[in-house]
């Protein structure tokens, strides 16, 4: 019964603790005085790379904060249009009514068709890919002789990767609704790497040893085949701004276009852009 007595004094302790926490919160939540901040938002395909670029940029410019958010290409485009973000990231080409934005291609990405490493298949024709993902071909039989059902893994509606795949492979054909849907490149890769009967598509930059990349019409996605566009599943990684980049935003974009970062881009499996178009060239840059 003394415990209840204790509980009365405990309120005081609790109050004290609460005050301390508040004070702590206040101190740590005060924004730094001299910090400058850029918000980058959009395509989750670009996000992991942008995270890294931002990290390196902030190392060089410790007083700045680069805030990288996902959200997807469309959200990124919207965010930069409304001013919620300084830079939008899009992994798909802009539509006509989005064209008023400034676009800077920072890298290129290939879409890799991936399967389980134990799968014997090496190559697919584009129309075979289309038939598999539309649900016309449902077993591996005519492809590699195994009478197993194909597990088709795709990205969700709204993702830039899916939009690019839809545009580059499917055309007007629908992706089968029986396909397994995952909401990131990483999860698609995870599932394909675990299921011997799976096939999926992910950003080339995120392919690793856990999955096997197929050649398409006999051509593997490589830096060369993507730069000269003989490999057909290629999409741009775009940085978008509302007006011509200036100030910190321009510095950040210049930083990404620098040789140092473009080399890094290559190391991480993306395809660097061919030339380094300075931001001054932006206005007359052609698609």
């Amino acid at each position, binding site marked *: 019964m003394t415990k209840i007595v204790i509980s009365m004094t405990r309120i005081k302790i609790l109050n004290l603790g609460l005050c301390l926490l508040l004070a702590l919160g206040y101190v740590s939540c005060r924004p730094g005085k001299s910090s400058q901040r850029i918000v980058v938002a959009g395509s*989750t395909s670009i996000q992991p790379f942008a995270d890294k670029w931002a990290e390196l940029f902030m190392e060089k410019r410790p007083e700045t904060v680069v805030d990288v958010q996902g959200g997807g290409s469309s959200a990124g485009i919207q965010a930069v249009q409304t001013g919620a973000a300084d830079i939008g990231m899009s992994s798909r080409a802009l539509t006509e009514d989005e064209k008023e934005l400034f676009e800077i291609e920072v890298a290129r990405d290939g879409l890799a068709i991936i399967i389980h490493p134990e799968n014997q298949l090496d190559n697919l024709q584009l129309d075979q890919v289309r038939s598999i993902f539309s649900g016309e071909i449902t077993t591996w039989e005519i492809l590699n002789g195994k009478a197993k059902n194909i597990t088709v893994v795709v990205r969700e*509606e*709204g993702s830039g990767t899916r939009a690019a795949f839809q545009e580059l492979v499917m055309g007007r054909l629908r992706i089968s*609704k029986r396909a397994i849907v995952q*909401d990131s490149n990483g999860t698609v890769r995870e599932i394909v790497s675990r299921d011997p009967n799976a096939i999926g598509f992910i950003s080339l930059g995120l392919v690793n040893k856990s999955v096997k990349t197929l050649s398409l019409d006999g051509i593997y996605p490589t830096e060369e085949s993507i730069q000269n566009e003989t490999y057909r599943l290629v999409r741009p990684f775009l940085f978008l701004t509302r007006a011509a980049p200036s100030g910190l935003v321009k510095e950040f974009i210049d930083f990404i276009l620098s040789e140092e970062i473009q080399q890094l881009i290559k190391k991480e499996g993306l395809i660097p852009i061919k030339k380094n178009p300075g931001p001054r060239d932006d206005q007359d840059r052609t698609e």
Partner: protein
Amino acid sequence: MTKIERNERLIRLCLLVVAFSAISVLAVITIFIFEQGTPIMFKYGFKNFLLGQDWYPSEKSFGLFPMIVGSLMVTLGALIIGVPLGLASAIFLTEFSNRRLARILKPFIELLAGIPSVVYGFIGLMFLIPFIRENLGGPGLSVLASSIILGVMILPTVTSIAIDSIRAVPDSFREGSIALGATKWQTVKMVILPAARSGIVAGVVLGMGRAIGETMAVIMVAGNAAAIPDSILAPVRTLTSNIALEMAYASGEHRQALFATGVILFVIIMILNTIANLTSARQKKR
């Protein structure tokens, strides 16, 4: 009015404001979800939303029927797995096991109700999915996997509420039944379960609410294909995972359609809540 009374009135008023702002949260949530979700339902027609078979938002095709069916399927599956296990554990721990075992196991089971759902999903992904794929066929990500994971997830909830309501049955009932020559099992079957029924039902409804509302664990193991599954080994998409999967990237009408998904989910949950309230009210009356 004395000063004290004026102060008291002020305090009462403040508390009323606090109480109402707490509840207005509900109103605000409801308003926001409906405000965002209903216009598009009107635009494309309720019937198309509720009964449409195709979910291709980029083609303005917003059929949620597969997801409604999916949610109901995995919830039912979760109940089929979670309720017998949970109920059996509750009966065993209260009526048949020795007291010490119950004293250890009840808190243990209750502790597990607090484990984040993503952990359950993760375990499913690591162990259950490969098991189903290799032994039963299909991609593994399936109705079956989701049902098992959700069933295990609601197990602690169902068990602990059932234990409480079985314990609430007065001992005189048990003694009376035993005195009439019934076995323990007969007592459980004929006396205790009927007496504890509405409490057990409330627990099941609560578990059902948890199952139908769960999101992340389901996304991890369901496969999320937007089609009505043709077997329990086929992938399935629920209303919640439809929202969480696509929310991050959606814009425009696509996003509104996800809010419409939220509206439908909201209505289903409200119906469940009302049923739960009615059952517990009936229990109180008894």
